[in-house]
């Protein structure tokens, strides 16, 4: 099929849509939405309910000690961190032993056991964490290829609901971004919940501050 055929397809579809369009109706705003007395507590509960592991720390410097108590981290052979100082990045030595900048291709991420990534903010109503594409480093596949994931979110960056979330997201364009809410999961076999479908088998969240 030539692109000329496609172009005429486009015009035909748009003409048909204009011909068949219903009468105008107004575009509403979202209704007033739920706010929580303690959004941090609500976030922690929801994140835990979706299979995530919630950990509070006073500062970034405290995360390493908490990581040492996390089995997926202590068992990991290959660890990458996208937060300077946490998991002791290449410069800081320690357990972090994958130099993401040296990877030529996302397929080289295969075999990564643990990744530490910064989340921009969390959403109390559903335990989702917004991760901007720029926080994923040179290969965005890291968040889903890694066997285990840790997210780091500042404690003062919890919004109540998804409306507030979209009020503050500024999409990187061109770019990428996503909400992550817990570890990957499936219930496709007899509705039995299994954690660890294709993406991370576990998801820890460090709330800092």
């Amino acid at each position, binding site marked *: 099929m030539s692109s000329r*055929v*496609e172009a005429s*397809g*486009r015009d*035909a*579809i748009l003409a048909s*849509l204009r*011909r*068949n*369009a*219903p009468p*105008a*109706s*107004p*575009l509403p705003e*979202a*209704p007033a*939405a*739920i706010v929580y007395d303690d959004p941090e507590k609500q976030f922690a509960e*929801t994140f835990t309910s979706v299979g995530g592991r919630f950990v509070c720390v006073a500062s970034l410097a405290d995360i390493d000690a908490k990581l040492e108590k996390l089995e997926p981290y202590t068992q990991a052979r290959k660890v990458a961190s996208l937060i300077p100082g946490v998991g002791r990045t290449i410069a800081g030595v320690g357990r972090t032993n994958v130099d993401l900048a040296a990877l030529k291709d*996302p397929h080289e991420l*295969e075999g990564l056991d643990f990744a530490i990534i910064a989340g921009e903010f969390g959403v109390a*109503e*559903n*335990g*989702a964490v917004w991760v901007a594409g720029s926080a994923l480093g040179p*290969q*965005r*596949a890291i968040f*889903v*290829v890694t066997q285990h994931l840790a997210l780091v979110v500042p404690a003062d960056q919890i919004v109540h*609901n*998804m*409306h507030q*979330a*979209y009020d503050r*997201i500024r*999409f*990187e*364009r*061109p*770019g*990428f*971004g*996503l*909400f*992550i*809410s817990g570890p*990957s*999961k*499936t219930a*496709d*076999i*007899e*509705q039995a919940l*299994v954690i*660890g*479908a*294709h*993406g991370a088998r576990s998801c820890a969240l460090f709330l800092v501050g």
Partner: protein
Amino acid sequence: MIGHAEKAAPFAANEPRAHWHDQALWFVRLKRDRQAESIPEWEALREAAAAIKAHTLSRIADYLEEFERNAHANGIQVHWARDAAEHNAIVHRILADRGITRLVKSKSMLTEECHLNPYLEARGIEVTDTDLGERIVQLRHEPPSHIVLPAIHLKKEDIGELFHKELGTAKDASDPKYLTEAARAHLRQKFMAAQAGLTGVNFAIAETGGFVVCTNEGNADMGTSLPPVHIACMGFEKIVPRAKDLGVFLRLLARSATGQPVTTYTTHFHGPMRGGELHVVIVDNGRSAILGQETFRRSLSCIRCGACMNTCPVFRRSGGYSYGYIVPGPIGSLLAPLRDPSQFASLPFASSLCGSCSDVCPVSIDLHHELYAFRQKLVENKTVPLFKRMAMAVMTYVLARTWAYSLAGRLMRWTMPRLPRALVYGPWNPWGRQRELPPMPRQSFRDLMKHDLNNEEPK
């Protein structure tokens, strides 16, 4: 034409399994209720979602053009397909021009609707469905039986047997965790070897020229972050005007679909991956004709959550395959006959019109009213079988005339107890196949009232 009831018969014949299916889906419905109840503004949210969809459909061409403009600015290539054949040809050309022979797919009901997989496979492309439920039905050479839970018609033992044969898992192993782990290893190889990834689109945003894909498994993310070519296919009705409208729809979608607060991954694409390509194919395939029908255009607001299926007493007891269309349940019973009224004429009747579907629909589609309206249309156009039309004509005559109604009642009360059972429960009485008729009363309600009133009057 084989109707819904005939297709449902084998499913209903396996009683324990039909019961399990019923209960499993009702469990999902209850989870949905718990999530809905956790949001005090739930009903207002549904109304807002319905109004956003209605507005968008009224200016759909403008929003699609705005999307296209912004998508181009983001480095996304936009294609348009009038029908399934054009859609399949566009996808194939993108792959063939780049010498791609291995494609991984995440869930897309549109590509099922267009029969993309067999089209590509016939042209030498290996297509792997990567959602676990979809991979299971693909290995069984079956279509999905539910749009959100594709393998809900199967038991773990069926899947254990399938994986033993196809993936070499241990014989008689049926633990869901073990089977899922085997599928993870098998599909990771497919992801690593894939040259392109194809996804559906949950929502496309006119204002930003991007789109959103929701999964729990992460399969869409694997398939679009490893290979350099990403193709996303969408019906034009997936468009929303503004990014903030996503707040409304994402609060409704997962809660309605599976009773989760949100899916694990809600991924926003606003451009190709580094060094890669991103194509969006916008498809009509009969949708614009539905847009032109005032009574039925609201069916285009559907966000494919499956809540109407989980709650439907007919779907739960008849299974997805009884509908014979890629989208089953109440919404499918509209979409299918809108596409082909004669092939799917029985579907609007596959409903008790109880209205449960309309109550749970996150975008407030008046499903049971539309199904009722569709029945009328089918009868008017004589698309309904002659026997049913004759029965309806007789009923209409009798119910509209007091004397005929009284006479019919009297005849039934007198003859029914005297007729042999074989005659009453003959093939002309489908209602009586699984049920006993109630015993005939000695007198009619009318006689009863007359009698009582006469007795009371002297007081």
